[in-house]
């Protein structure tokens, strides 16, 4: 796949955008500003930015509560995402979903599904609609190694296989299902081996290698667009933060975290940009600062936004409720 210099710069910006956004959430949560639970994807930026790079208008991607970054990369307003996390009426879901449900359907970002498993079957409904409409669009489900042990992962992959759907299953394997390490979850090293059981292509790659992520997802997505059916991709990656903010992570060592920080997807990509003379240190600093300023703006937007009016409690329950004035 040929990536232009502009592509590379955009991807670099996307990864910083995600990291700054997530770091801001960590800070705001620690200050007690953000209500509820916050799960952060710091360390997994390449998985999100690289996958979304291959998606276009009309494609759908659904992810988990750890992938606010997918929404950002799909072009969902950062203001609206931040406002949603604050619980403000200007949020993507009018403040009624929060971090675990923020989404942007217009941008093909189904958003998160906070119940592990159902997203891996629901993706097929989108894919079936694409296939029926012969529009060459794809539906991507991005989830963790934990969800890959739900029965629905298996039912979903079998459906996708048997109906030859343009469904792409992507596992961000960050090594832990909350606190349980992969050694206690499955006997196989590569979760992509499960694809063989459904007769579909499966591949495991380094999820912190942005170029590899782009190439691998690009191939699977192109195949699905042309009627070649589903694929399973496993990204080996790592989350730097705990499962949720406030998680004391007694299940892993500082050394392990430090090892993985050496594999920082952003730093690795910076080397490529320098080697290929795509950007200078100064250019990169400029992008870094620009993304930070964007996040500052999102925070201000969210802070300045109003709370939902009490009437918002009662809207959107039904499209049409017979015998009531609601719509």
């Amino acid at each position: 796949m040929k990536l232009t210099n502009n592509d590379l710069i955009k991807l670099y910006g996307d990864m910083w955008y995600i990291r700054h956004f997530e770091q801001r959430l960590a800070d705001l949560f620690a200050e007690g500003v953000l209500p509820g639970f916050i799960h952060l994807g710091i360390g997994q930026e390449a998985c999100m930015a690289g996958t979304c790079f291959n998606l276009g208008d009309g494609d759908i991607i659904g992810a988990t509560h750890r992938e606010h970054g997918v929404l950002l990369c799909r072009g969902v307003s950062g203001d609206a995402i931040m406002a949603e996390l604050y619980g403000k009426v200007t949020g993507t879901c009018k403040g009624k979903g929060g971090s675990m449900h923020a989404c942007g359907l217009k941008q093909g970002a189904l958003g998160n599904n906070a119940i592990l498993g159902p997203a891996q079957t629901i993706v097929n409904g989108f894919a079936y609609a694409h296939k029926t409409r012969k529009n060459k669009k794809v539906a991507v489900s991005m989830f963790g190694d934990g969800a890959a042990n739900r029965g629905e992962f298996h039912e979903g992959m079998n459906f996708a296989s048997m109906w030859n759907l343009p469904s792409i299953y992507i596992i961000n394997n960050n090594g832990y299902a909350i606190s349980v390490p992969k050694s206690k979850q499955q006997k196989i090293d590569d979760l992509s081996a499960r694809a063989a059981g459904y007769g579909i292509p499966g591949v495991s790659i380094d999820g912190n290698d942005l170029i590899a992520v782009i190439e691998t997802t690009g191939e699977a997505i192109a195949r699905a667009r042309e009627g070649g059916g589903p694929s399973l991709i496993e990204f080996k990656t790592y989350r730097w933060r705990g499962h949720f903010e406030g998680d004391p992570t007694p299940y892993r060592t500082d050394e392990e975290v430090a090892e993985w920080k050496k594999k920082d997807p952003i730093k690795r990509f910076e080397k490529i940009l320098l080697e290929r003379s795509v950007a200078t240190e100064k250019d990169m600093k400029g992008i870094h600062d620009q993304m930070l300023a964007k996040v500052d703006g999102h925070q201000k937007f969210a802070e300045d936004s109003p709370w939902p009016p009490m009437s918002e409690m009662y809207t959107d329950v039904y499209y049409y409720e017979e015998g009531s004035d609601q719509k």
Partner: protein
Amino acid sequence: MREITVAEAIREALTEEMERNPEVFVFGEDVGAFGGCFGVTTGLYDKFPDRVIDTMIAETGILGIACGAAYSGMKPVPEIMFSDFFSVCFDYLFNQSSKARYMTGMQEGGKNAGFVLRAPNGAGVRAAAQHSQCVEQFMMPVVGLKIAIPSTPADTKGMLKYAIRGNDPVVFLEHKMMYGISGPVPDGDHLVPFASADIKREGTDVTIVATQMMVHKSLAAAETLAKEGINIEVVDPRSLKPLDMKTILASVKKTKHLVLVNEAPKTGNALTEIGLRVVEEAFDYLEAPPVRVCAPDTPIPFSPVLEDAWIRSEADIIEGVRKALA
């Protein structure tokens, strides 16, 4: 008026709506060439070979397709072979479709959250405790769902067509003992909206609110009691969510007595909600406490003698009426 069975009414409704909207599709276990476990979709596959689709025995996979396709704007009509099996795919009713619009910003996509989940409901076919339940009571608290629970061929056809044209997730319960019941069904584009309770028999002395097979048994009980000069009004809510309380309250205010008849066990019974609403809103009109005629709080037994005794009979309903009038 012509008479057709409930099964034929469903088939007509599906055929007409599939002809009307090319994005309606029917899928589930054995619904294709086999025609469904109860033969309800017989012949549909021949008419729409690409849109009547056999699936694996994978209920979560089925309802996942329903949710995703509905969110994409299609009109899925999945069938789950027995309503008892909702237990294995309940998340799609409880946490997914019913909350999608409210919680995940589905409002941006407007109306795209509607599918119609058809499933055979109820006892009487000697299928024991896992293939015989009436499950409406488990659906009642699920905000965002609609529940259709028709009792006649005409209501079944009209409500199914209406449900398919709607934009909300619907659980459409078909009592399996009703499939062979015949009744008049109007020609043409027959639609029956939800929240439109139907007075199946007018009366002045006692209001019976009943659903599905219990509507038919209540009508029989009413004829028996009429010979004694007791004049029963039988109200069929037809949908439990949303619920037409106006018709029920008007009936109770007239008769001053309420008997609730539902096939499922008494504890947590779906019609309890109706009883309490009547107590809340029309207590002063009641001359006696509401009476529930429901099954015992046991699993449904297999042995024909036990199952027959478990299912409430015309005699049980008559006893309930006498209790209300005592």
